[in-house]
């Protein structure tokens, strides 16, 4: 595989943090990052969610996110931890119990290697996005469409409603942009 992206290293780093080890079960998954720009500084929020192997070979049960961890992009220092049972952003949603399975239909035909390649590519685009946000650079529609396409491919449909709640602006923007760069009507839960 190609060299690791910064964000892949960050995910590994997060797992080693004392805060993470204290509060997050070791088998928890770390979800798709949610960039945040505030007062000129860039942060990235990671949802933590549960998953478990199922009796069926090759399938993994997915559970809703239970926490968010936000770190500063430049120095990886945590700035916020939110327990989503304590601060429930969507009271009417289902936060307990299995909500879906992985792999979902869009990626079920991929080999593990091919899936990892796509994931690596998406995380690489996240790297670029976060750097550009920090520098105040712009994003051309073609780049956004590519990012949206990859995100749509890899986003687990059963978790999508939760992502749209946790990062409404971000996911409404990218999950509603197709490859041709045209916007279609997206759902908005925010």
């Amino acid at each position, binding site marked *: 595989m190609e060299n690791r992206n910064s964000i892949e290293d960050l995910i*590994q780093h997060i797992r080693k943090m004392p805060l993470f080890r204290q509060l997050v079960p070791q088998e928890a998954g770390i979800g798709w990052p949610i960039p945040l720009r505030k007062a000129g500084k860039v942060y990235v929020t990671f949802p933590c969610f549960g998953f478990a192997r199922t009796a069926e070979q090759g399938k993994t049960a997915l559970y809703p996110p239970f926490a968010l961890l936000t770190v500063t992009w430049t120095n990886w220092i945590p700035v916020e931890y939110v327990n989503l049972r304590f601060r429930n952003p969507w009271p009417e949603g289902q936060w307990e119990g299995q909500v879906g399975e992985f792999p979902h239909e869009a990626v079920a035909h991929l*080999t593990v*290697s091919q899936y990892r390649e796509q994931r690596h590519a998406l995380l690489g685009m996240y790297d670029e996005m976060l750097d550009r946000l920090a520098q105040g650079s712009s994003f*051309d529609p073609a780049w956004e469409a590519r990012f949206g396409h990859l995100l749509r491919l890899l986003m687990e449909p059963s978790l999508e409603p939760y992502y749209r709640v946790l990062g409404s602006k971000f996911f409404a923007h990218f999950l509603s942009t197709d490859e041709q760069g045209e916007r279609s009507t997206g759902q908005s839960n925010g």
Partner: protein
Amino acid sequence: MITYQQQRQQVIQLFQSAAAMAQRFKHRELEKRLNESEKHFAQGKLVVVVCGEFKQGKSSLINALLGEPDLFPVDIDVTTSLVSSITYGPTENITVMIGEPGKERERQIQRSEIPDYVTEQRNPQNAWLARMLIIEAPNEQLKDGLTLVDTPGVGGLNKRHSDVTYAFLQNADVVLFVSDALRPLSTHDLQFITEQVAPHCQNIIFVVTKIDVKRDFQAVVEENRQKLAQALGGSGDTIFIIPVSSRSKLAYLQSQDSEDLEDSNFMALENEIWKLLREQRARILLAEALSTLGEAITEMERPLRGEFETYQQQNAQQVQVIESQFREAEQRLKTLLDNDALWRVRLSDGMSDIRTDLTKQFQEGFVLIRRQLDRYLDDDTLRERPDQLMNQLQTDINGLMSIIAKNLGQLAGKLYADLNSDIEASSGLHLNSLALVPTFSDRAISLPSWNMPDQSQQAPTWYQTGGAWDKVVFIANSAKSGGTGGGIAGGTAGVVLGGIIGFLLGSVAALPGAVIGGVIGRGLGQLGGLITGFRGEMAQQRGKRKAEIARLVTPFLEDCQRECTFILNEALKTTERTVRDELRSQIQREKQSYEQTLQSIQDARKLTRAEADGKMAELKGPLDTLQSMRKRVEDLARLALEPAPGASRRPVAAGTELPQRSHAQPAEMLPGADSGSFADE
């Protein structure tokens, strides 16, 4: 700057101190592990292959490097026709392997008999059927693990030796490509370098010899630099060319006149060789050894520290806190040992990916071999000598399997390191005591000691041939080792490859490499036997037409491919099993260490205050010693990971791309461009 040799000595001393400490505290298994690791480290080989066209001064160069004027024959009318290796031994011992593949035997000879086997003049057409010469010599230059390999000229490369030459080339730590100052590199030289050397070894030093006979040798050096830069795709700055005079160096040995030494320019060559070795192989050998030492020190220190801290605490509650921390760690390790632990799933997934990648490479490789066979069948000379055609095929197949083995070793090594990192990340435990932040190239430092399996486990095949590794990079014959190490009977080429790969890759990819080499070597050995048999049959087909020969060879090639597929599958299965078992052993060892610590704490709680104070005083000395050893290990590890001076000028082989991060340019807003408001709070 500390040299590799100095670092090596310090590491050996640390091994001895740690083993003594282990003995004192009755850690018998640990003491055994340390002694064996020290032996493995001390025997670690750094392989420098010398190649180039014939009559370019390769043998003189080696004689001059070693300060042994009469080691390899160098007379003007002599050409070397045999691959020869030279490594350290306490006494001089020279062995020539002779006989047909599958029927080789060793013959001990004297130094004066070397020309009888290695020169075309005294052994025309290799009538002795010599396969390789192995020299051990009590030469100080070789004492730190350096192994030099002299090869026949590539232009007149004797096809009977080509498989051995390529096996070494593909696994060399450094290649010295030798040409002389009388003429620039030829097209043939450049083709050999780009096709046979650069793909397998990035560390090439181009040596221009005989500068004492040509005044304006610099012009040749510069022309070589330009040609190489063009052929290899780098800039001239990244090509290492060192002009030398072997004659001046040998003259210095007699005269001790520093001017002769300066004229020879051998200091520059030796410095460059050691710099490259240090960057790569030496670094890996050191990293493995230090990793083992770090782990051992932790194993000894942890229970003593636990006990000490228990004595230090003034109340039961504080002791309880310490104890619960250790229990929690022990519990995490227990979870990691479960059959459904995540790392096992990741190992399985990772090996599945590797299998997919390598199967594809393997199939593509055989497509190329079949195409090459067509070209051979169109060659009148080869059709006249179908047995030579078989030699070519064997070389091609061995070459492909060698590359596959190397790739498997590297991929499995990376997977192993990644899993280690994942286990640490998910468990919150440091399975290795060295707290250096790993990057991929540094990950060797976090590889645990793998070297010496428990007695209860079957040792990897190469390890059973340990007696031979005392000699040189070659396999043991089955008579000596009594082992199953893919013995000579299987066919030297395959066994040589297996032995070499197993040994040389053993430190590149640590655990997996040695195992892979053993499996593939054994397999290729058996395949080599089959090919030998078929070669005899093919010798009867001289003068036959292309179609007739093709009708015989093509199905045989298909059989070879099936056999190699089986070999690859076996290697993959064995690799996965070995990686899994080693990770499991590592976790188990950690768990046992925590259990021991908990026991120490519980024992400590039973003592009175006065007894506890006495014990604390007893423990202080050993703890200080262990701490100081740990610091030494960490300092040496940092030094080992430092890039050598000038490392940025390493040559870049053609086709190598350096990873580039895209740097977002601060840009004006373009029409239709988004400002990134999707991320704004």
